[in-house]
């Protein structure tokens, strides 16, 4: 493994964020339906998981349940608008739909050079979606959405696909691509002067994309001599799609795991369904798994009455089972003195506690104990604590000097040992 080759150096610190839309169950404590609640009973070390988190019980000492956190600016936004800023903390409103950099991309900008791929962006819907209904969690330094991949085979080919050409031929091809892109840039600049102002901004988006590929080409050339890791593809459902949600999610988690294990990248995001109830292809996943309703309706019904608690709780239970599968794979793999999970911080959750409610985000923080995180607790915070404080501490734990992120007001040292 490339990471191990680093020898005595400390194992790299990784970050992975997984998002689901619409929220969770919050019924009145003391009723039987509270058993389907997301948030545990009790607090601190002394807490008890509810039914939908049963799969996480064996991983209790590897994770922390977080309550009360949210982005203050998200609270001012529409109920379905906040997937876009889950990792950015920006405020998006009509007329001002510009986002800012996401946590994963800040890390990728800082340290992404050290791996073959600076980051990995996945989602069920793919592409970027539209502002306030993004189908990606990642945004660049200039707030541009980074398109997510949603086809397992494409992700696999990108990470582990082998080019059968000789090295010198591959090098020549990369150099040719570099020259091609130089000429394209030159040619496009001459076009720019003939365009109106709005068009020029669109063309700038294109020019940025060309420059980014140029950088990728240069990077590929640097990595040419390092053979791509070989991984065992058996058991991967690379042709899974939105008609088989279980296989699709599991395979995406497998790919995230393999990407981290082989140190192909250290930063990744995965969005499970976007907040566009009207268009997300993931909306029907619960029904395909034999549950009663679409994601959006399950969340809505859970607000209407007690009868809605169990159906949504079961869906959440499915999501946490999948998460547990991913965490177990990370934990079962040794790295340095500990496990891969010890060096990987996983943030799992949503920006809706209930549908249309953008506060008290349901969040699970797992792994990263080698980075100083302390687990086995349910921590509750007041709404004066911005979620960005957590991001500041995570940045620091991943090795980035950071004094602030978005609207942070400090750090969140409570998560540390």
């Amino acid at each position, binding site marked *: 493994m490339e990471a191990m080759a680093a020898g005595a150096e400390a194992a790299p610190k990784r970050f992975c964020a997984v998002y689901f839309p619409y929220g969770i169950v919050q019924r009145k404590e003391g009723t039987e339906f509270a058993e389907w609640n997301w948030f545990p009973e009790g607090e601190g070390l002394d807490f008890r998981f509810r039914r939908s988190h049963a799969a996480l019980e064996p991983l209790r000492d590897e994770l922390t349940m977080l309550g009360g956190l949210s982005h203050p600016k998200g609270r001012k936004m*529409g109920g379905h608008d906040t997937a876009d800023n889950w990792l950015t903390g920006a405020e998006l409103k009509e007329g001002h739909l510009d986002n800012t950099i996401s946590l994963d991309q800040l890390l990728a900008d800082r340290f992404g050079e050290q791996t073959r791929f600076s980051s990995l962006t996945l989602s069920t819907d793919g592409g970027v979606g539209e502002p306030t209904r993004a189908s990606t969690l990642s945004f660049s330094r200039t707030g541009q959405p980074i398109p997510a991949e949603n086809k397992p085979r494409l992700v696999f080919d990108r990470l582990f696909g082998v080019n059968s050409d000789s090295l010198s031929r591959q090098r020549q091809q990369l150099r040719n691509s570099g020259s091609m892109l130089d000429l394209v840039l030159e040619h496009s600049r001459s076009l720019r002067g003939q365009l109106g102002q709005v068009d020029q901004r*669109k063309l700038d988006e294109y020019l940025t994309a060309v420059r980014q590929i140029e950088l990728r080409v240069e990077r590929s050339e640097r990595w040419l001599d390092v053979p791509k890791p070989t991984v065992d593809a058996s058991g991967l459902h690379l*042709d899974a799609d939105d008609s088989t949600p279980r296989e699709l999610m599991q395979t995406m988690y497998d790919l995230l795991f393999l990407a981290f294990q082989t140190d192909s990248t250290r930063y990744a995001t995965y969005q499970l369904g976007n907040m566009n109830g009207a268009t997300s292809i993931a909306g029907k996943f619960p029904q395909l798994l034999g549950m009663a309703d679409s994601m959006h309706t399950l969340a809505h019904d859970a607000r209407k009455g007690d009868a809605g608690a169990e159906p949504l709780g079961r869906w959440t239970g499915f999501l946490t089972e999948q998460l547990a599968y991913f965490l177990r794979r990370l934990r079962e793999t040794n790295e340095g003195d500990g496990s891969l999970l010890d060096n990987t911080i996983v943030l799992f959750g949503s920006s809706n506690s209930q549908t249309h409610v953008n506060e008290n985000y349901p969040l699970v923080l797992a792994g990263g104990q080698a980075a100083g995180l302390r687990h086995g607790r349910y921590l509750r915070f007041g709404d004066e604590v911005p979620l960005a404080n957590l991001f500041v501490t995570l940045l620091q734990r991943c090795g980035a000097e950071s004094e602030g992120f978005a609207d942070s007001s400090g750090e969140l040292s409570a998560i540390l040992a």
Partner: protein
Amino acid sequence: MKALIRAGLLLATASAGLWAAESFETSVRPVLQQRCVMCHGEAIANAGVRLDTLSGDLAGDRRAAETWHDVLNALNRGEMPPRGAPALSDDERRAVVDWVTEELRRTAAARRANGGEVALRRLNRVEYQNTLRDLLGLDVDYVRNLPPDERSREGFANNGAALRMSALQLEYYLQAARSGLARAIVEGPAPPVFAHHSEETVQDKDANILWSNRLGRNGAFVARVPEFPDEGEFVLRIRARAELPTPDSAYPRMEVTLGYRADTQTPSKRVAVVDVEGGAAQTFEFRGRIEEFPLQSRTQSKYPGLLVWARNVYSDGKPAPEGRKVQEQADGKTVTHWKWDEDPTFPSIVVESFDFKAPVYVSWPPEHHRRLVPATPASPAEEGSAARAALRGFLPRAYRRPLRDEDVATSMRYFELLRPSAGSFERTLRDVFAMALVSPDFLYQVETRPNDHKGLSDHELASRLSYFLWSTTPDDELRALADAGRLHQPEVLRAETVRLLRDDRSRAFVEQFCDGWLDLNGVDRVAVNPTYFPDFDPTLKADMRQETRSLFAEVLRNDLSALTLLRADFTMLNESLARHYGLRGPRGGAFERVALDGKRPGGLLGQGSVLLANSTGEDSHPIERGVWVRRALLDDPPPPPPPAVPNLDASEDSELLPLKVQLERHRDSAACAQCHRSIDPWGVALEGLDAVGLVRDTILRRSGEREERHPVDAAAVLPDGTHVDGVNDLIDYLHDQRPNDFARALTAKLLSYALGRSLELDDEQEVDALTERFAEGGYRLPHLITMIVAGDPFQGR
């Protein structure tokens, strides 16, 4: 002189602005304060609208202008003040309406003087696919890896502002261009051709499949082609006849699939599906590119050869019987094999022969190669001039404009740089062409803004027209007219619009426009619950989408009134969808006009696609249906839900109640009533149609083991006070009372699609004028399309 006039205009605008501000304070603000602010103010801001702080400066505040526009609409439709509140006096109403109308008009005029905004428009997936197909002369899948496109708030995937570019996107464009060109430009001598003929299916006694030349409820005909090329076009010829149980039965449908990969378990991929009509045997011909199908590795020992499958995919809704194991004595030994029962009531296919040939080409190099590379250099010295000749032919077509000097020069620099290491002339040329295909001139619909003239050039106009009606690049005829500078002439443009509409390629317009306008992809978002609808075959979703597109196409092609889309006594069906609806329809897979005879509602509100897309997969969803009616048919989308909807508690039994009853409980809550009163009735009127679009008298609800049936109650009061009971009432209401609102909605959507951008306030007058003429002309779609093309916004004036 011009500057002087403009200065005068500015002065006039400024003084008009002063006058407007005064009139706002004296005559409008008092009305708002007294009559509106109690529900649209600081304490309560229904629908998120506050009229106490709303700016009266429409020209300076675009958001405010749009809210004022909503205010005007609410007043004009009589929706505000709401029922129960005292109406505005005539003077009050006129003060507000006159002021808003005048301000909107003035704002629009001022904006136009600043020049309308357009956004450089990237080709979307469909346009990219069609454009490469036409440019390279090869119909292969170019867009498999491209990420999905962004849609505009109107639902269209051709909106320049919404469509983004990113490194990932561009990387896939380069990949697609390179792999397409590697096939379009060939090198070397003509490849060997492989052919195979068989008359009997291959057999494999181990498999639980009935291998047979006869394809009934069970059965697969399989041909194994021993030798085949790795790439190139193939042709399959299958001779088959139908055996019908009765002379008027449905036709069996033959699905042909090709390939199989054992190592990755990739199943065979569909080549085509055809109806096999009764009568004598016919020969069916299928073509495709062999490299687009899953092929097993040649080193694989278990399945040598290429497998081609023919199956009968006709379905009458009954499941195919499983095979059973039978033991028989043969030569003194007990042999176990599978048996299936034949069903004489099922329309069957008998395959008589199978032929395979690949690669097929009329000449070598093939036609598509010769179009791209007109001259093959005989010696290295001729390569430069041969490359230039190829570029001079290719670049104007790729860039959709006349050649500029630097175009060929830039490409030739890359050619010379690449040639020493590329190995051959053809390989070099492929990558030089690929460079053009990742240039902005190809990937975007570029419209330059020269200072000396207004409006689009003829070539830009050709592109707009071609992408509007064909979703692809202009053809030779359009390009020739643009080259000659004649396309902008009104009579020429009109004739071309009609020609494009009549051409089969306008199917792309029908599909793209209908999918966006009516949100037909919605059927894929809903999972139909099999416990509620055990007989629902998921392939019906595609049929439903096609029904709606075909209805629109029928109205367009026959120049029918567009109001037929609201109320029709026919719909467009194929055999399987007609059976789903319980109607007698065509015998095969093609969509044909079917009279409804009052058995189900006609028009868009009777479409399975619309009804299913706006359902839960178990029951109707009156809210979503209501939102759909307002958005698609009236262009009056309700505001999005507020940031924090208060909690609503329903009883535990609510699951057993029809959604409509649950909704009524919600509407009783004051917090939700305001918005939902104007959303839900539109959907409630459709309660007589279930989640999969079937007419119903009772509504089935289940909760655990319990099951209840409720009578349908489709009575609703529309926001203007009209009582409707059921879908036909709603159809009559829309058709008879609101034809112009529907026509205006359709016009606005069509204009937005044609321009590839969202409409703004400035466009309101254009939409009004178009709608008026559209109505005067009897609501004919070709008329409307011709007017849009002839109009100032489309021509960039």
